[in-house]
């Protein structure tokens, strides 16, 4: 049944039609046609997603259980139920998996601490400066066009051992003489924070943009402290934006490997995405790489599910 049925019945249009004495069956028939129209609208897109998203996930699951027959060439695997692939991969790479979640978590908290004031500045403080607001908003999105690898590479050069930042920090003794910024876990987390900042700021902005400023004024009248108003009025109202932002940051950050491969050191900063990439393309171990990807997907879905259950709104799921 179409949702239109309930709304349409209350509208003057429906009353008029009924008033004209049209039989109820005619109206029903029209509603059913509109219902079928809905299926035609969503069908092509969902067929696409079924073919190129759902089916591939099952392909991944199947591949993760493949086995290599004795004497096979490189990259030759046969379908099997080799659960040992999971044991083998998790046994070797659980530190990378945990590290990925830890880095992603720290970066998500950092983007939230930076991105929220950023969004608040544009959406609330500059509410009446349409042009400036528009320009700042564009500045958040436009970096995508410079290519994030080029920008990450730029950070690598800015923070390099012989670069300006390191020399200054060493000169003022904030960094020991042999201290460095690149090739450290700190650099990787900073890179993640930098690259996913727009994904945090934009959803929060989209939410705060609709916030009724009179609520803040009322809060100020009642609580008379900016921070209390923020904690009891603004923040709870903007939670849907915060949740969307944290998900859009945490999920890709956990799977990212550009930052760890450009800003890391290949010893104690390796993230799980790097492992998947090298098992696929260097080691040519498709089953192992697929098993790791599948574990990553399940782990993230489980975390997201718990998170959305705990803090979530109906808007998302």
């Amino acid at each position: 049944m179409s949702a239109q049925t309930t709304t349409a019945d209350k509208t003057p249009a429906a009353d008029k039609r009924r008033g004209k004495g049209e039989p109820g069956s005619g109206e029903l028939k029209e509603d059913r046609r509109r219902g079928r129209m809905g299926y035609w609208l969503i069908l092509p897109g969902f067929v696409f997603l079924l073919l190129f998203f759902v089916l591939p996930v099952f392909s991944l699951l199947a591949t993760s259980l493949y086995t290599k027959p004795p004497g096979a060439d490189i990259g030759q695997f046969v379908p099997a139920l080799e659960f040992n692939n999971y044991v083998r991969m998790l046994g070797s790479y659980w530190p990378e998996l945990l590290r990925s979640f830890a880095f992603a978590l720290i970066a998500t908290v950092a983007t939230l601490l930076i991105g929220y004031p950023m969004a608040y500045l544009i959406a609330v403080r500059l509410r009446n400066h349409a042009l400036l607001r528009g320009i700042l908003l564009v500045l958040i999105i436009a970096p995508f066009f410079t290519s994030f690898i080029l920008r990450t590479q730029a950070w690598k050069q800015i923070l390099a051992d012989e670069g300006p930042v390191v020399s200054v920090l060493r000169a003022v003794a904030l960094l020991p003489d042999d201290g460095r910024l690149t090739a450290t876990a700190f650099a990787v987390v900073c890179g993640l924070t930098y690259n996913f900042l727009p994904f945090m700021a934009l959803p929060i902005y989209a939410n705060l943009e609709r916030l009724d400023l009179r609520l803040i004024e009322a809060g100020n009248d009642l609580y008379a402290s900016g921070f209390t108003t923020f904690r009891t009025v603004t923040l709870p109202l903007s939670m849907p934006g915060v949740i969307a932002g944290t998900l859009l940051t945490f999920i890709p950050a956990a799977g990212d490997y550009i930052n760890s491969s450009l800003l890391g050191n290949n010893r104690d900063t390796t993230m799980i995405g790097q492992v998947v990439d090298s098992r696929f393309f260097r080691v040519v171990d498709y089953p192992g790489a697929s098993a790791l990807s599948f574990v990553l997907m399940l782990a993230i879905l489980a975390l997201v599910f718990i998170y959305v259950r705990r803090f979530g709104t109906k808007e998302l799921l």
Partner: protein
Amino acid sequence: MKNSFGRWLVPVIGGLAFIFLLVPIAYVFVFSFNDAGRTNLTWRGFTWDNWRNPCGAPEVCAALGNSLQIGATATLIAVVLGTAIAIGLVRYRFRFNATANMLIFLPLATPEVVLGASLLAQFLNVGAELGKGTIIIAHTVFCISFVVVTVKARVASLDPKLEEAAADLYASPMQAFWRVTFPLLLPGIVAAGLLSFAISFDDFIITNFNSGNVDTFPKFIYVAATRGIPAQANVIGSAMFIIALLIVIGGQVLAHRRRKMLAAR
């Protein structure tokens, strides 16, 4: 003054955040004028040469061409399929509504490595040849979800009574859609298109899994990073940034003027 703490805290953090966001872009821009030679790592002197001849490193331009073509095609497909889904999901009720919403949400909740790896597993299993086609398919998957989420918000804010009014005035459902609904949805559709083009243009991980030996702009830079990125890549990165900025700011200024004119009336 109790409020003063928050009063300066927000502009200071927000301002620093914008500087943080723009510092590497400034670096890329400055080094696009470097008389670099093979590697663009240290400053060797100012030159216009890279800007005069951005295709001086021919692979850069070929990769850029691929990226533009892939971004435009994936965006077009995603906008058509995604807008239809958004309208369908908001305006009609289905028995499997929750499942449908879940299917839209899942590609966004899946890290790029997993999306890339699963499509690669699929393409390997069916023996598809990797290239532009497989990249476009891969990009369309995540672009659709972004389009649906963006356009859905716009459809939900539209009053269905507008269409009913059109129907009362004897517009056919098609006329009502193209003359009333579509123009009202257009800003949302344009925003969704820009977003999905930007994300497709900047994607590396999914592309890397499904591209075979086709280079895109980000993939070219990633591969070049080990042996030195040519200064022409900085030129193109800077130029794309400036073009995107001009287009959108131009649109903003026009919209601003129109708002002022309407307000003056």
